[in-house]
């Protein structure tokens, strides 16, 4: 196992995952430096979402080690990941549609509550002060992501692009060190993608949050990310800066379908 360096926030070593004999991820290793924006790219079924699920503990890898913030572990539950500063969004929006934007964002603050349930119910002790603080923090995120005009609107009534932003706000409300975004720009038009890219860049710069994201739009990835990891059929085929990945023959082959023709030519 490789040793982690101080600048690495996340390191995956030899991670493998299979479902009933089907190998989703095979011996993947890479590291994400603190403060960088890292993209996981690859065709459908390459294992990108599974890898995010391994990082935040939804799936437990059959082999390999995940080292996060200097601590190596084989198993971690999702709530432990959240407590340690890993937040995520989902490919299919997972919000409370019948709740307002503000209430959805406040749910992202649950782990930050210190008052007991009895204090909350009776509005005693730490509860009132803590509620004010939670609201203030949630509002800061809401303003940061420019969703304040809709703070009291039910999420289910918002257009898709805004719902994606609310989901990002909820993840950000947990004040994560590592933010995992599963296709944050899926289904968006070019203008919405630009806007979302800018928000991700701002989150990374203003809060110093490390971001690992899955994205299919290569143009967006190349413009936004510092580091790109390319997966294909559960294996890593590329890892480096956008320029390095763009020049990698295996990546070109996987994306442009030249592998077969190259093999045939040999």
């Amino acid at each position: 196992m490789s040793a982690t360096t101080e600048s690495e926030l996340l390191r995956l070593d030899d991670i493998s995952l299979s479902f009933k004999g089907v190998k989703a991820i095979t011996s993947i290793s890479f590291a994400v430096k603190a403060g960088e924006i890292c993209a996981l790219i690859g065709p459908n079924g390459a294992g990108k979402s599974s890898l995010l699920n391994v990082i935040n503990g939804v799936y437990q890898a059959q082999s390999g080690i995940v080292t996060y913030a200097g601590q190596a572990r084989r198993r971690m539950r999702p709530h432990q990941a959240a407590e340690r500063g890993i937040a995520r969004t989902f490919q299919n929006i997972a919000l409370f549609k019948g709740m307002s934007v503000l209430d959805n964002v406040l749910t992202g603050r649950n782990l930050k509550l210190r008052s007991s349930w009895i204090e909350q119910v009776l509005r005693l002790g730490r509860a009132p002060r803590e509620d004010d603080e939670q609201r203030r923090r949630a509002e800061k995120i809401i303003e940061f992501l420019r969703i304040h005009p809709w703070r009291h609107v039910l999420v289910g009534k918002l257009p898709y692009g805004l719902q994606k932003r609310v989901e990002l706000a909820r993840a950000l409300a947990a004040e994560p060190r590592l933010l995992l975004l599963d296709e944050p720009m899926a289904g968006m038009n070019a203008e919405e993608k630009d806007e979302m890219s800018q928000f991700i860049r701002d989150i990374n710069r203003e809060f110093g949050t490390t971001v690992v994201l899955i994205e299919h739009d290569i143009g967006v990835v190349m413009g936004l990310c510092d580091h790109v990891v390319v997966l294909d059929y559960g294996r890593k085929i590329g890892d480096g800066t956008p320029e390095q990945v763009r020049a990698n023959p295996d990546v070109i082959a996987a994306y442009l379908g030249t592998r077969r023709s190259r093999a045939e030519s040999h």
Partner: protein
Amino acid sequence: MAQTLPLALLQQAQTRGSAIALRYKRLGIWHARSWSELAQDVGRLAAALHQRGFGRHDDLLIISQARSEALLLALAAQWLGGSVTLLDPERDNRALLARLRPSFVLAEALDAVQQVRHADLPPRVLLFLDGRGLNAGEGKGLSAYADLFSGVAAEPPVCATEPAAIAFVFHADTHGPSLRLSHAQLLGGARKLVAREHLSGAEEALAARVFAASGQARYLLAPWLCAGFCLNFPEAMATRDTDRRELGPTLVLGTRESYARLEQWARERLPLPGTLGYRLYRWAMVPEAQAFRRWLGYWLIRRPLLDVLGMSRLRVPLLVGPALSQESAAFFGALGIHPGNWQEPSARQEPADTRIPLISQSV
């Protein structure tokens, strides 16, 4: 009777110091400042500007939407005898800035800061309100507005402005003539408006884009200091409709376009034509109905609609510029809102430059 805007502020602070002068919304919460607190804030800002070399012959250039900070800093510059040039942040001001070469600038956010930096000669002092996207310590003379309050002398300098001094300068475009309004002109016009509309300290006015156009300075800012009512700032332009609903202002100021925008906004929320709800709306909006129909229509339709528009407490709907379209006039008329045209005599004596907006989007 106060002859300058800063003196009008001090007079309000002396006579009705604990009354609320200004309300603004930050992070979803309304905050209030009394007249005495406001006068103290402006005094401290004047001291901070003075420390940075701002004097009676200087001009402070502000590129910002309606924000309380921008208003306070404008009053502080005027306190020191200087003038204030107001530019719309949504316009491309680079050519104009290159011509004006301002020494003291308040820029709302990164876009405005970049416009200022585009000019050949960087300003001596460049203040910003929102530091998002700006790197700390980047650029000479760049500092946060919030930093003005730290390390300021306890005693503010003496209020040095004179009635004939220029208070605000507006530019239509890069090469066109500027519109310059003195303290005396502003206060003279404001007193006429206050008397005509019987404005008092009890009014609640909503200020959206206070600095975008001359009409805001004439018909909202100066009357605010004269009458001593409460000026409310929305959280952002995007939230002004919600904020108006929360506030229920008694005084609004707008143009034909801004009233039309509001009408359109309301119409988009009406029930679909052909539905029972729409027929009920049409029934309730007939202007010359019998007393019972008027009464019932008010409680069933018109009052809820006024609440949605944030106009149920509206007493003084001001209109600057051309009259409303027939449709808008009928819509607002049915709701009992009759925006009257207001053109002060002094405005007609100034250089007639129709390109300089009187006001924009304040309703």
